[in-house]
């Protein structure tokens, strides 16, 4: 076990962590806005990867260039989700809200399985390929660019939410939707925007990952689980918390895999989750 291998694992974990952070940020935005956990988040990620894949295989569009289309598709998907499902369960009990989004996740996943079979696919010869060597550490180019794009998107999301007028309106709705409505901010529209942006984030992450990751119908489950943990770790509803939490999870996953046993990655993350929930239930940056 040399220091180079550990350094390699740290870099890998960091790159993975930035992707987790963006996926979690979308989840956290939606939760902060209407206190609904989107249990179909992983399935939306899967949809974005498949959208990227189909644009490549049907139209020959490289995943790098199809990202805007994927983002738009996912944002549209978010608005549809809000319009057809979430709108009706806003006032329902938490139990019903969880069941509904869980039902959505089953529905999307099994439809995908029926349409596209559970085969593993990948994008052949994307523009981003190969690896670069920095010192003794190898960095896969697609992974590197994916994490950088995710970081950029994350910063963009953060600036959007904290600096723009729409972002401030989103925050106002998140804090008190009735007070916001009195001030003339239509909460229903804000929720739809929240869903569009939340799933747009997933679109970025999925579109970039399509460059190097296997694409199959169950791909979302693990990412969604890590995103849930990242949201709990960062504090429900906190966006900046997701960045730190995502990086922590990425590091734990890759270092745990290196030092102990890679087949139990999920368990290490689970242990982290337990520890956070026991010792700091409101998360690192949580409001609650």
């Amino acid at each position, binding site marked *: 076990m040399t220091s180079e291998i550990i350094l390699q694992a740290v870099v890998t974990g960091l790159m993975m962590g930035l992707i987790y952070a963006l996926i979690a940020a979308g989840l956290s935005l939606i939760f902060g806005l209407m206190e609904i956990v989107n249990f179909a988040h992983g399935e939306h990620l899967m949809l974005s990867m498949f959208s990227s894949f189909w644009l490549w295989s049907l139209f020959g569009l490289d995943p790098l260039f199809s990202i805007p289309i994927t983002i738009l598709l996912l944002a549209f998907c978010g608005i549809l989700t809000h319009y057809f499902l979430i709108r009706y369960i806003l006032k329902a009990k*938490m139990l019903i809200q969880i069941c509904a989004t869980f*039902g959505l996740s089953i529905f999307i*996943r*099994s439809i995908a399985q029926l349409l596209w079979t559970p085969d593993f696919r990948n994008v052949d010869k994307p523009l981003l390929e190969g690896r670069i060597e920095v010192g003794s550490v190898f960095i896969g180019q697609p992974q590197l660019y994916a994490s950088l794009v995710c970081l950029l998107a994350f910063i963009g999301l953060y600036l959007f939410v904290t600096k723009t007028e729409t972002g401030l309106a989103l925050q106002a709705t998140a804090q008190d939707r009735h007070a916001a409505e009195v001030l003339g901010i239509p909460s229903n529209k804000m929720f739809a925007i929240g869903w569009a942006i939340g799933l747009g984030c997933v679109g970025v992450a999925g579109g970039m990952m399509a460059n190097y990751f296997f694409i199959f119908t169950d791909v979302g489950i693990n990412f969604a689980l890590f995103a*849930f943990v990242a949201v709990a770790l960062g504090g429900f509803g906190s966006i900046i918390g997701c960045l730190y939490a995502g990086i922590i999870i990425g590091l734990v996953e890759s270092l745990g895999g290196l030092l102990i046993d890679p087949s139990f990655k999920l368990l290490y993350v689970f242990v982290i989750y*337990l520890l956070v929930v026991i010792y700091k239930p409101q998360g690192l940056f949580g409001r609650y």
Partner: protein
Amino acid sequence: MESKLITAKSEPLWNTNNKVISIVFGLVILLFALPLFGLNSFYLHLFIMIFMHAVMAQSWNVIAGFSGQISLGHGAFFGIGAYATSFLYMQYGITPWISIFFGMFISAIFAVLIGIPMLRLSGHYFAIATLLIGISFQVVFQRWDLVGAASGLWVTMTPEDSWIALQFHSSKIPYYYVFLIFFLITFFAVWLLSRSKLGYRLRAVRDDPQAALSLCINVSNYKIIAYVISAMIMAPMGSLFAQYILIVDPDRVFNIEISIIVLLITVLGGIGNVWGPIIGASILIPISEYSRIYLGGTGGAVDLIFYGLILMIICIFRPNGLISFIPKDILERKKQR
């Protein structure tokens, strides 16, 4: 809240609508007599699956319906039960009749271990944790060589039917009665629970934790109790299922589909109602079994599409489940003034 607690204490147990009691007794007798009519093994299988899933859903109902905590990985306890009996029987020759209780015991311990940190917090934490648990168990058992890793345990077959080993090869009728009896015991127990002091306190915890707290109900303790009871109902079904199919592997008994279907049955039938799981199971299981016959190999995914769709539709239009179509005064005990 307070008046409910007092009624719970003073009310006689059998103060139910007489019509309902007679219908229920009639149905129970009919269920006991059914195999005598010479049902073929497919129908026996169908009834066995209905009983099994009704009990599994009832287990989920106890934690989700009564105490309001959503568990998305309830399959874990099913798997623990299945592995407990098969492993002890194969390694030490212990009869399933004893190891069923061992499985219940292990499940209860896990429920306490998971419940203590998780149930103090709001429901989302618990839902996410249980989702992780369900998958973690599958991952661990897939790699655990002692219990056969990914290929699982193939229960050694007895040459002949045996009540001690709980294996019947020539007919499904004994299985039918075993499942039926477990089904009746569980429902009677949960029915008692639902109208006991504990049951009222659990519902108080669900409906308004703060009000419950102000009445000196220790909210997190009651949630843990509900979770333990729920786990102990789930585990024997795993054990019996293992005895029924005689093969236990991680992909089957820790399948996420188990956690999905218990949720679906309960929400479909009526969550938080003792009768909900029976209604849900007797509608959903025949659909699922028949679709498996007619749609063949692809049935798995087609099933799930409908499950997801039904779940969303129920959540939007009938959050109280199908039981809410039945007028309340039929099911609830007569109001006495």
